[in-house]
């Protein structure tokens, strides 16, 4: 006898019959009837009409019947709230039952009934169950708090359940601890501001102990909770890692991946010189590889995560290439992921193996996979220079197969190889030309036409080839038309005598017979260029093209760092931060990897800021390697900048001493009384404080209207390094507002659109206050001037040098990174004039070792001129003295983050032979002195 009998029905109204049976006197019949109801439920039939009849069966001492009724209640209580209330009494009674199983069942079911009226009755039983003597009941009750919170958060807080739940973290039973942690994490997720999971070394220790004892699922909750903790130093990080590593050998893959997350995150704090660091790296590889022998669904999730891990720390899996080799019966989603990782791991050492594999894949059956494999060969060529030749010959072999889509993909990637290694592999052009006729996909046709145009001088019959395309010009896609136009113009410039007719033909096709504005515009431009100044035309059209960048497919470093914090979650599968998942950013705190601790900072600084330009050098293009710690905010997130970034995660340890005196500005600049002497827990409110003073600056405008010194624009990003986009710029400060004046020039042949800009975290929290607005698309050779307003409420991270700013600019073509140094005086605020008495007191109070001496050479200005020039850049003269014929100026200035700098400037008037100024600076954060001195020099000398 099986349950399938419950599905059979008679013709005569099923519900009607069930109703009769439910109300039967016979116990057995009742139970059978409830089973039939449940069976209907399992196939999605609506049996809610039987609600009162089923609830009537609830009062029973038969546990199975009770369970079944509870099952039914959970499904339908929401739709029958008035009826559900009928069940309350039984619930309350069951919560007192001597059998812990029944107590737990009752409190569990009550929590699942999402009806407000019931929740009121739930509070008392729940309170009792949270303190129940039986751990099974306690752990069920812990989960129930989370359920109740979901229905009525206020009620849970008012009733003090959150505190009880926190107490359960110290429970003697590890399962109770795990459930309490799970419940608290869930509640904390919907209340990101609350300080629910107050993690400190003691509670962490408790969690680590519970980790060893609780079930696999509990371990996942605990590990995920641990991952949110930031250890206070590298030693603590190491000790947590040591206790987490045994989890890597767990049979449950979710436990393994959660442990990997904790380790990847805390590793960030460990010095690479440490022996333990190397041990940890070694320990991480086997479990990751083991995940690949699991079921395909698990493999898929694992591979998506490994893709991130390989980008962040390629050294972990660099010897494990072979496990990513594709088996022919892997599901396609696994195959594609493996391929992606293979390319990431490709290096000179293993390229031969990789290529042999890729070639094998290129003859498989699945078209998608074959295409990706061919593309992968091209990516290898671009990534591993030494292999380029072999890749090209592999591609040629593939072209010989004449399989249509293989040939087309191969031609597309060969075009990229030409772009990367110009004048190296042109010998293959002949082979490519043989396949001209078989190309039917626009991308392949366009690639082929590009090749013909680019190398027209080496292809004897280039004109014939291009002419053959011209026949069906109007049937081609825009991509092909544009390429054909350019290619023929190139051809004409290279072989003007034979191709005059052809170029006229294509120009007329493009300008007169086409409806496409892009095509017409380009046609006209060429036409005019050719007719007015053929020499200029040659310079423009045949200009040397920037090389294509090596790895365009890497995830941006900041996004990568954030995603590393989300290993194992959906975010890691989609490679998007959870903020992309939740509308309005509600409840989303950006996670970031912990910074390295102060103790190891001195030795580690070259690594923590690898992108830092040496002082004095204005330009440095950031290498696009994955191990760049500099957090360039990701550009993928919809609108480029949406208001100031959240302040929650913004303050980093490294910046603490920089923020000294942050409290001053908190107190309020107008009534400024407190001397900066007070040592302040600076990491509390500095960004907010500076925001306040910024506001104040705007309203009061103490500073002069003229605004501070503006340096001439310098080239920040040369076109060579940004696929034709040239950026030059400078910084200005006027009436309290900072801006970045940019000049964007399009030196490419392609229209640029969709500009966006983001800054990496920097020492003073500089951030764009508005999106970068380039209103019209930027046509080739066009230049626009933009003034981008900045604020100082962005995330803070100490940079090396201090005034280093890393910028990412995006357009429709790619993302580019550059870094620049900003003059510190743009951060001098308008209310930087200190009271005389205060000045004296502060000067004395700052220890002498914080004093720095500088000389400003060859500055033939008198004290008045110096003073007024400095004042226009918000360096204020507090007092002036004449000592032995020398003018001593006592000056003060304040930075946007509330740091005061005091200065003594010695000027020798009327002595033409002695024009050097002597400057002494005193500041609580002495590292700014050097930059303040540079600001003095720039202001006084220009």
């Amino acid at each position: 006898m099986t349950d399938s009998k419950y599905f059979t029905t008679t013709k005569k109204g099923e519900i009607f019959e069930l109703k009769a049976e439910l109300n039967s006197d016979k116990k057995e019949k009742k139970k059978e009837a409830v089973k039939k109801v449940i069976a209907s439920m399992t196939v999605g039939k609506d049996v809610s009409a039987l609600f009162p009849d089923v609830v009537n069966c609830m009062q029973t001492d038969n546990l199975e019947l009770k369970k079944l009724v509870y099952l039914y209640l959970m499904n339908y209580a929401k739709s029958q709230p008035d009826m559900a209330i009928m069940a309350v009494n039984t619930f309350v009674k069951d919560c007192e039952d001597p059998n812990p199983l029944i107590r737990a069942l009752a409190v569990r079911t009550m929590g699942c009934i999402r009806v407000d009226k019931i929740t009121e009755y739930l509070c008392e039983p729940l309170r009792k169950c949270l303190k129940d003597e039986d751990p099974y009941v306690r752990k069920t009750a812990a989960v129930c708090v989370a359920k109740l919170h979901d229905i009525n958060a206020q009620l849970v807080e008012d009733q003090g359940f959150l505190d009880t739940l926190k107490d359960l973290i110290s429970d003697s039973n590890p399962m109770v601890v795990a459930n309490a942690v799970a419940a608290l994490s869930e509640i904390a997720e919907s209340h990101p501001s609350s300080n629910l999971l107050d993690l400190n070394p003691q509670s962490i220790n408790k969690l680590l102990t519970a980790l060893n004892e609780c079930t696999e699922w509990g371990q996942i909750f605990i590990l995920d909770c641990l991952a949110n903790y930031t250890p206070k130093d590298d030693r603590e990080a190491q000790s947590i890692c040591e206790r987490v590593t045994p989890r890597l050998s767990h049979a449950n893959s979710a436990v393994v991946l959660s442990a990997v997350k904790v380790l990847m995150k805390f590793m960030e704090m460990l010095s690479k010189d440490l022996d333990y660091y190397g041990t940890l790296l070694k320990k991480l590889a086997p479990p990751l590889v083991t995940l690949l022998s699991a079921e395909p669904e698990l493999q898929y999730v694992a591979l998506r995560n490994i893709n991130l891990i390989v980008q962040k720390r390629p050294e972990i899996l660099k010897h494990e290439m072979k496990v990513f080799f594709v088996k022919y019966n892997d599901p396609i989603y696994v195959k594609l992921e493996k391929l992606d990782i293979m390319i990431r791991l490709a290096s000179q050492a293993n390229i031969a193996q990789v290529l042999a594999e890729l070639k094998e894949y290129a003859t498989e059956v699945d078209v998608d996979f074959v295409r990706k494999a061919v593309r992968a060969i091209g990516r290898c060529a671009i990534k591993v220079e030494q292999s380029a030749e072999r890749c090209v010959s592999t591609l040629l072999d593939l072209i010989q197969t004449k399989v249509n889509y293989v040939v087309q993909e191969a031609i597309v990637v060969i075009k990229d190889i030409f772009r990367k290694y110009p004048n190296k592999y042109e010998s293959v052009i002949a082979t490519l030309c043989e396949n001209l006729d078989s190309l039917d996909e626009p991308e392949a046709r366009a690639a082929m036409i590009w090749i013909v145009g680019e190398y027209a001088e080496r292809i004897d019959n280039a004109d014939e080839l291009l002419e053959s395309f011209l026949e069906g010009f109007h049937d081609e896609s825009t991509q092909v038309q544009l390429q054909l136009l350019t290619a023929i113009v190139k051809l004409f410039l290279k072989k003007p005598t034979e191709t005059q007719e052809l170029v006229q033909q294509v120009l007329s096709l493009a300008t007169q017979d086409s409806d496409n504005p892009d095509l017409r515009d380009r046609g006209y431009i060429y036409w005019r260029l050719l007719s007015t100044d053929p020499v200029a035309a040659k310079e423009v059209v045949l200009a040397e093209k920037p090389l294509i960048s090596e790895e365009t497919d890497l995830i941006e470093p900041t996004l990568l760092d954030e995603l590393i914090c989300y290993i194992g979650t959906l975010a890691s599968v989609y490679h998007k931060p959870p903020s992309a998942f939740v509308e309005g950013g509600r409840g989303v705190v950006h996670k970031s990897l912990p910074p390295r601790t102060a103790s190891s900072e001195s030795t580690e600084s070259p690594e923590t800021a690898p992108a830092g330009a040496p002082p004095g050098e204005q330009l440095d293009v950031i290498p696009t390697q994955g191990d760049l710690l500099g957090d360039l905010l990701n550009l993928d997130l919809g609108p480029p900048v949406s208001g100031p970034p959240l302040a929650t995660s913004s303050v980093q340890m490294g910046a603490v001493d920089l923020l000294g005196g942050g409290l001053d500005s908190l107190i309020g600049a107008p009534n400024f009384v407190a001397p900066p002497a007070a040592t302040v827990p600076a990491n509390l409110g500095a960004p907010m404080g500076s925001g306040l003073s910024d506001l104040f600056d705007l309203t009061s405008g103490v500073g002069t209207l003229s605004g501070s010194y503006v340096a001439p624009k310098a080239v920040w990003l040369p076109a060579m390094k940004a696929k034709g986009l040239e950026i030059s710029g400078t910084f200005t400060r006027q009436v309290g507002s900072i801006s970045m004046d940019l000049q964007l020039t399009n030196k490419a042949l392609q229209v640029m659109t969709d500009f966006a800009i983001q800054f990496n975290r920097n020492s003073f929290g500089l951030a764009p206050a508005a999106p970068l607005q380039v209103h019209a698309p930027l046509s080739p050779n066009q230049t626009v001037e933009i003034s981008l307003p900045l604020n100082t409420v962005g995330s803070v991270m100490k940079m090396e040098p201090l005034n280093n700013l890393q910028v990412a600019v995006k357009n429709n073509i790619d993302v580019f990174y550059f870094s620049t140094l900003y003059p510190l005086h743009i951060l001098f605020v308008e209310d930087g004039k200190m009271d005389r008495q205060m000045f004296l007191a502060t000067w004395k109070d700052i220890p002498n070792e914080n004093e720095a001496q500088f000389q400003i050479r060859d500055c033939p200005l008198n004290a008045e001129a110096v003073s007024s020039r400095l004042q226009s850049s918000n360096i204020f003269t507090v007092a002036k003295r004449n000592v032995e014929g020398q003018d001593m100026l006592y000056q003060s200035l304040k930075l946007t983050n509330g740091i005061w700098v005091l200065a003594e400037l010695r000027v020798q008037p009327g002595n033409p032979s002695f024009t050097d100024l002597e400057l002494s600076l005193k500041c609580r954060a002495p590292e700014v002195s050097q930059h303040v001195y540079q600001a003095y020099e720039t202001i006084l000398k220009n």
Partner: protein
Amino acid sequence: MAGAPDSSLGCGSVCGAVSRDRASLPAFRSFFPAGRKGEKMIHSLFLINCSGDIFLEKHWKSVVSQSVCDYFFEAQEKAVDVENVPPVISTPHHYLISIYRDKLFFVSVIQTEVPPLFVIEFLHRVADTFQDYFGECSEAAIKDNVVIVYELLEEMLDNGFPLATESNILKELIKPPTILRSVVNSITGSSNVGDTLPTGQLSNIPWRRAGVKYTNNEAYFDVVEEIDAIIDKSGSTVFAEIQGVIDACIKLSGMPDLSLSFMNPRLLDDVSFHPCIRFKRWESERVLSFIPPDGNFRLISYRVSSQNLVAIPVYVKHSISFKENSSCGRFDITIGPKQNMGKTIEGITVTVHMPKVVLNMNLTPTQGSYTFDPVTKVLTWDVGKITPQKLPSLKGLVNLQSGAPKPEENPSLNIQFKIQQLAISGLKVNRLDMYGEKYKPFKGVKYVTKAGKFQVRT
């Protein structure tokens, strides 16, 4: 010459590629309506059979309409093969995380950020439990036991937190169906629901119940190793590793504390353990020390990957060729023993997915029998065991669709085999000691090596 039908064809396949990519990696948008609170974990579960019928649904929160599965069906249609349905699918309001097991899809509905592995592991655990309870995880078995299924699902998950997933505990809470019990139940009116709290549920050894009693105390260990390998055309090994497991069947009374040691524990450097194993002891002494669960369970799984340790027990000589401009080809494969450590290789099966243009095959095996399915184009050759005196071979003609171009790709051969009494890695159990109980148990170890994903490229 680029005629309209041609180019539109090309375009179609490009679009196909793009949209499939999108199914697994959707263009991002906001997935959840604003203001929805954190509803953790699995919201609902749908069981779907291969013909696309939803035959069971279970909701842990409110009821979610079956129509959410339409997104799944859409993805399934795109994927063509059932195995290729992406395991994570996003829909405007939910995520669907699914597994494919025993010809059934387990589709779970998720509403918030959640670790997908957690869900996938849990779903596999559900399938394992069904297997354990009903002897098979099939639509018929689930439908026949729908009430137990419902009770199990309720017991396994509470508000998204897995509650009891250990089979020992579940079996105390909900008794598995047996023919005898259902007869007894219907006569006596007793139920299949346990009415006391399972003893293991909250102890520090949740995997073992108290008060276990056997008249014959026995402990058996099966060391099962599977060779995953890719062999290239020329017969050299592209990739090979061993996936090993030790499955245990422990029927011991009381609370036995076991120690299992190996002759060569150094082989095991990449191991996953059952929670019962004391990790510290393994780290320091390389001994597996544990209080076992009662009954069948997987003690450890391990991986041996260093190339020189992985012996390849068989070789295949092959010659598959298709003639240009002719509708036939030749097929000839021979299997022989290689590094088989002197043991007999048995249970050999060769499976080949032939190219689509193959119409039929006319072959002669020297031993065993072969079948060719002209619809799926799968050739299966059931070889049996290898006798070194006369190597098994299969040769003959391949008929191709006339006029079709000769196939570009050469098929890969998938090989299955079995070697009894051998762990190919050389792993050997040294001894098993028992503490904590007085009786003398009967102990046994069995070794077997099998082919895992063993592929030969031609």
